[in-house]
């Protein structure tokens, strides 16, 4: 019984997915989509309440140690549930317009959320691996949900082929980790590695695991699938897949590096710092040249991966480095899902997501969405008083403390680059007039709510930062001992 209580949020999400599928069969007529949304949102609300019953002082395990519940678990559970909530909110109107199979879309999204939550609570490699696949395989499906659309097909195909490839590499790395340490539990692996030390085979296993997870998190040079998959997928799916799998991949990386690989005490710093610098620079430079806002956001999400990886690299600076990683993941999740949702406010039939020119004069046609989008873009740029500013500060300072001055300089330069292409969008919305006839905007009340919520959250968390940051600090504590 205790075991089931430990996974209450996961049970709630699973049950919600099941109810969504049943409601889809039971309810007919015009209210069907709204009923499905309401069920999903209510279920996620329940899951969210179950995920945060109070501060966990002593971490505990369930299911023979396969489920680890600590503040780290709670933090990511809440993050994934919040992201799924916003994604569902943003999906309904778009799905109705494009005739996507809505019930399947919602259920698949919930399954993916469940997989991400499983990663956050896993105490061994098998659970971690199964959770990773439960998160990823539904996202392949989601990317291809618009099945009459060749762009969507292509996005799904590319994402699937590279995803399956990275899964195989990761599994082989896990197999070697098991073979070399004799355990699949993260603590057991740590004990095994403490006695073997860093031998050649261990290094090979670590390389395989790193490559596999870098694919999932879209770290350069394993990012090539990202822009096409994000660009071609239906926009509500892009919103979700640009944030949740990335956060989950970093949850897996932190658990592995912090718990299982902890005794090796290799100097991760240099490798991760170089990858982080490459990732943020490449993402930003390519984002500069994109005429499509959707594609620009896709590349900029690669750049944000770089900032998060910089936090991982700064581990030497102590617990606040990984608290910065958690804070950044949370802030990035909110801002980015909101930005993609904002693109859906501009959605018109026959376009694939907004080109920069479609945004001309948006401030006059849709003042509130334009304002919310502006707030989100400012937050993504990293300007005060938004949450994005603090996220950058919380990974910037540990990088300095860890003696990575050069990385801090690259981060600052990249922030300037990012400011150019993010604020260019604001200029288009507020200062340029539309050319020629303007198509009417589709009604988008729910999407508008999603954009508004994320924009308000960006400002509120930017001004009232401390609760989230202290939560991130206590969430990073169990993995940094």
């Amino acid at each position: 019984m205790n075991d089931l209580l430990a996974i209450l949020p996961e049970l709630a999400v699973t049950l919600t997915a099941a109810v969504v599928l049943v409601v889809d069969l039971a309810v007919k007529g015009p209210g069907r989509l709204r009923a499905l949304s309401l069920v999903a949102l209510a279920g996620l609300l329940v899951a969210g309440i179950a995920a945060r019953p109070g501060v966990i002082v002593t971490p505990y395990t369930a299911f023979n140690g396969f489920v680890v519940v600590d503040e780290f678990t709670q933090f990511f559970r809440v993050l994934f549930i919040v992201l799924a909530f916003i994604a569902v909110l943003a999906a309904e109107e778009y799905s109705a317009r494009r005739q996507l199979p809505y019930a399947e879309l919602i259920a698949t999204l919930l399954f993916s959320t469940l997989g991400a939550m499983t990663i956050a609570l896993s105490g061994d490699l098998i659970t971690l691996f199964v959770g990773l696949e439960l998160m990823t395989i539904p996202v392949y499906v989601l990317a291809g949900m618009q099945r009459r659309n060749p762009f969507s097909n292509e996005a799904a195909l590319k994402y699937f082929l590279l995803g399956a490839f990275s899964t195989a590499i990761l599994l082989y790395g896990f197999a070697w980790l098991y073979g070399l340490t004799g355990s699949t539990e993260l603590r057991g692996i740590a004990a095994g590695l403490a006695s073997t030390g860093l031998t050649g085979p261990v290094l090979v296993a670590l390389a395989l695991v790193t490559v596999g997870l870098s694919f999932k998190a879209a770290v350069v040079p394993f990012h090539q699938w990202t822009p096409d998959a994000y660009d071609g997928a239906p926009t509500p799916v892009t919103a979700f897949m640009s944030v949740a799998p990335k956060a989950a991949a970093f949850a897996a990386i932190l658990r592995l590096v912090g718990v299982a690989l902890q005794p090796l005490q290799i100097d991760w710093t240099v490798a991760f710092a170089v990858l982080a610098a490459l990732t943020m620079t490449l993402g930003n430079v390519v984002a500069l040249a994109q005429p499509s806002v959707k594609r620009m956001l896709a590349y900029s999400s690669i750049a944000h991966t770089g900032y998060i990886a910089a936090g991982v690299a700064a581990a030497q600076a102590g617990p606040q480095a990984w608290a910065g990683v958690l804070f950044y993941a949370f802030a990035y999740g909110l801002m980015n899902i909101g930005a993609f949702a904002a693109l859906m406010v501009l959605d018109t039939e026959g376009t694939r997501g907004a080109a920069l020119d479609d945004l001309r004069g948006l401030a006059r046609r849709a003042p509130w969405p334009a304002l919310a989008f502006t707030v989100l873009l400012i937050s993504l740029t990293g300007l005060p008083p938004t949450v994005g500013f603090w996220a950058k500060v919380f990974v910037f300072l540990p990088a300095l403390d860890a003696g990575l001055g050069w990385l801090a300089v690259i981060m600052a330069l990249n922030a300037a680059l990012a400011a150019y292409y993010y604020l260019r969008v604001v200029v288009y919305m507020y200062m340029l007039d539309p050319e020629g006839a303007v198509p009417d905007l589709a009604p988008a009340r729910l999407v508008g709510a999603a954009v508004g919520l994320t924009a308000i959250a960006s400002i509120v968390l930017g001004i009232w930062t401390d609760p989230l940051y202290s939560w991130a600090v206590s969430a990073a504590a169990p993995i940094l001992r």
Partner: protein
Amino acid sequence: MDFIAPLIFVILAAIVVAGGLAVVLLPRITGSALSMGLSFLGMAGLFALLGAETIAFFQVLIYVGAITVLILYGVMLTGVAPAGADRRLFFQKQAGWALVPLKFVGVVATVFALSFQSNVVQQPGGDLEPLANAVFRDYAFPFEVASVLLLAAMIGAIALVKRGDD
């Protein structure tokens, strides 16, 4: 007796590796699919040789059976590219015929592998009992997650290919 197990190992390993190479090298997709089945079959033999006969059984059931057939269906539904047929090298038809006896050897070697797996005294129930205990008791949580994964994959696959309401 000491040379028989290594001999069986060498035969099975050759089948696994040759099958794998053929998947990559054969120009015709049906050839690749059948070679993959062959490689999977040899792998089942290797599992049996390692004393994991339950895993070997699942390997035959899931990989040689379900996955190979599923992929052959995929090949059938997406069509075999006729353009490749012209570029076929002269030995490839013969290579196709060679697959048949190879598969036969694979089956025979797998069966033999079961009898020559190891000199350890097997407890009754073989490796099934510890495996079942582990999967259904200790690993109950990942097992449940895996069942949700199958459900999710099923719903997803249907959502992607069903015809009708669009």
